[in-house]
């Protein structure tokens, strides 16, 4: 059963995360989004969306240190939990798109 519908930006973030190989942290996700959508993306929006996706159960996260030494930078890694769910969303979209052409 579908847990929840995905809003547009959630969809974007989720796809950007998948393109990272199912797992990644904010910096490459933001880079990916900016490159693919051609728009500036506010990190705050991405954090909040990732949190919301986690609440909805689409992703899970853990804290990791980027460098092994003391005082190294910290990152929160997100991973897609249920790929089936995402594909389901894609199917819904494709169904809705089917038969439509640009300009009509």
């Amino acid at each position, binding site marked *: 059963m579908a847990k929840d519908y995905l809003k547009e930006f959630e969809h974007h973030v989720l796809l950007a995360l998948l393109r990272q190989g199912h797992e990644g942290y904010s910096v490459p996700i933001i*880079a990916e989004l900016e490159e693919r959508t051609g728009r500036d993306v506010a990190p705050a929006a991405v954090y*909040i969306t990732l949190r919301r996706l986690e609440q909805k159960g689409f992703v899970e996260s853990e804290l990791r240190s980027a460098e092994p030494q003391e005082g190294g930078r910290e990152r929160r890694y997100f991973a897609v939990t249920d790929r089936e769910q995402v594909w389901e969303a894609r199917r819904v979209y494709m169904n809705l798109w089917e038969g439509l052409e640009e300009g009509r």
Partner: protein
Amino acid sequence: MRTAAARILRLILPHMDRRHVLDELEELYELRVQGQGQAAADRWYRRQVRTFVLRVLVPGRGGRRAPKGPEEHWRQRKMRNRLDVLWQDLCFALRTTCRWPGFTVMIVLILGVGIGGNVAIFSVLKALLFQPLPYPEPDRLVQVWQTHIDYRTRWPFSSPDYLDVREQNRSFEEFGAYSPQRFTVGRVEPERVYGATATAGVLRAYGVEPALGRLFTEGEELEGNNRVAVLSDRFWKRRFGAEPEVVGTAIAINGGYYQVIGVMPHGFEFISPWSPGEHVAVWTPLALSRDGASRTNQWLLGIARLRPEVTLEVAAAGLRAIASGLGEQYPSTNARKQLWVNPLKRQIVGDVRGQVLLLMGAVALVLLLACANVASMLLAKSARRRTEMAIRSSLGAGRWRIVGQLLTESMVLSLLGGIAGTLIGVAGLGAMRSLIPRDVPRMADVTIDGPVLLFSLGLALLTGLIFGLAPALHGSRSEVSEVLRGVRGGHTVRGGRARMLGFLAVGQLAIALVLTNGAALLYVSFRNVIRTPQVFDAEQTLTASISLDGDRYAENQARVGFWNQLLDGVAALPGVDHAALTNQLPLLGGINDEILSEEETFESRGNGTLTEITFISPDYFDAMGIPLLAGRALGDGDWQESVRGNVVVNKTLAERYWPGENAVGKTIRRNADPASWTAAIVGVVEDVRQWGPERNPIPQVYFPHERSTWNASWLVLSSKSDPLSHVPAIKNEVARLDPGLVVSDPRRMEQVFDSTTLQRRFITRLVGLFAVVALVLAMAGVFGMMSHEVAQRTHEIGIRAALGAARTNLLAMALGRALRLASIGAVIGIVGAVLSARVTRQWVFGMSGTNPAFMAGLVIFLLIVAVAATGVPALRASSWESALGIPPQRA
């Protein structure tokens, strides 16, 4: 800049996200720096922080949200509902205020006046009472006085006493002594400035480091080493153009050269109890020695910094022990002396505290009155909005919902009033600043700043609650069916509203009575003060201060020589009748000593008669216009030996020692062992008030100036023409004798007198202004209430008229109610006035603070005010058109 932004983020982010978000943002930032450069990246970072702030803090835009359970969900829904309601109420309140612009402007103005007065006075109160003195750890700063053992006096120290206390005490980290004085600075264009000669401990006690150079050392307290000076920042900038090279160079002070060794930091004010409002510009070291200095010669102010662990009580106990030790060691001079430590702040603020609190009380009453006034306006208005409220409640609005809406409306009004009040306060403070007497300390610190604005916001909200609550509770109590059926005012509602309006009118009248009583007391007292007979000739007497500085005036002979030459020159000026010299002018305070008559024997200092000591030249009484009552005035040669001579005394002294007898021919001597002088009385003169127009004369002795002439003295001359016209000629005369001297403060005695009544004048004017505002508001309040009542009772009056009630009966009915209310207001007001007499007591002069005749007059005045305010609405009620219930025709 970026660190500040990061700090904001650290503050708002939830703990669990803080570190990694900041780290990742840093990473993104670094990427931007590489790609777009530092400046663009900085801008980007700041933009991101703004976004975070908006998203995290503004509800509904994501952010700090934990997973929602059903309760959480409902809580949020409820919260959002409440916010929606508030928003609706706000919009509605704004629309309402715009719907009746005249009404709104009126209320905002009334509140503005009430709040504005409070804001202005509060800003003064805050600077004086709440703000700590501008020194490090100001609570440790104390003023040290010598005092009489039996009662509190503010005696300065003698130098041997000061040196002994400095040696023996264990409570002070620093203990300095100083003598405030005027310095003449510069040889070219010399000017007179306030300054102090001070021991090394004085500036160190204040705990402020110099901005340039250094402070004095103990070594510079020795005669010969003391030719150094420290300047204030303001004086350094003004006189020396802020040249740092001034430090190390020599400047002329009082005719000698002093090396500038330091400049105090910007903003440092040397606050001293003898010249609280003056800017002290120069400090030079004070050279003290025990040799030859008498313990009876008390002239030094003591200032100390307590050690960190020492409390005021411990310090006081230690000083008491020292004082009793000195008393045993030097019984003839110190047996009656005690020591007293007073925190510097209390010392400085103590004298003006009473008047600021009095003004604060007065403005608080004005605001309360404004609240009552606005409340009655809103209450009357709520009568007109009964239909609206009835419709609201029939559509399902609960009572509290309506109360909330009405309260929101009053809050909007009160906030607008708060804004108007702050503006009025700023303007009022500007006007007040020019009126505040100069001797009120710390006036430079009075500003409308954050805390004052917060105060005015708080006041506005409180005001809104006070004046809004009663009308809101009342307005929400509409009886739906009656109103919608068109019944003119349900009985309970109308009765309740009339009662409430009456209550508010009574309150306003009572407050107005209290304020008018205070203002009238102050006014009459002020008039009593300025009408106090002054024996001197206020209009035709000129005074000016001249200071003989430098080594050539070190001997009294040289000073007397100079003065005699000057007096001869000035007396010869055309139009000048008499010219003389004195060391202290009437009214401005002075020096005193203790004397004994020939019958009294010496016991110890502290037991003699406290007597003003004035040194004058022969023509002084004529120049000042002081009448001679017996004997003769002083002439040349009245003091030829050093310890013996002739003096003139005032009436108070003569009557104290020889009541009913002729004092001429009697002798007096100084209360010391041995007496350093003995004098024969050759004349008695009328009393002058030496310590201001409000203090009774005390015994006074006039010595011929041959005995001792001060460096700084006052020139006094009388003239039939305008005395001020002689100032240029006097300046020429002084410059002819010595071009390095300055003639300062040329004033007529009238101006000297005015300067001593400034505080009283200021207080009287302000309270008078508040009382006028209060009276106008109260009158408007009664007028509004009666108009409303008449409008509400048009129907009833019409029926009464139709049934044969006479016009006079109807008029009497309205006036009767007004008089009833005014009488209740008067009774409450009298109680308030009697209670407030405690506060005004220190300002009442030459009359009783609770004079029954005075109060009766006030009550009659108040009744007249109430009747006058009722007149118009009452006449309208009794005219036949309205009596028949016919509304006036509109053209």
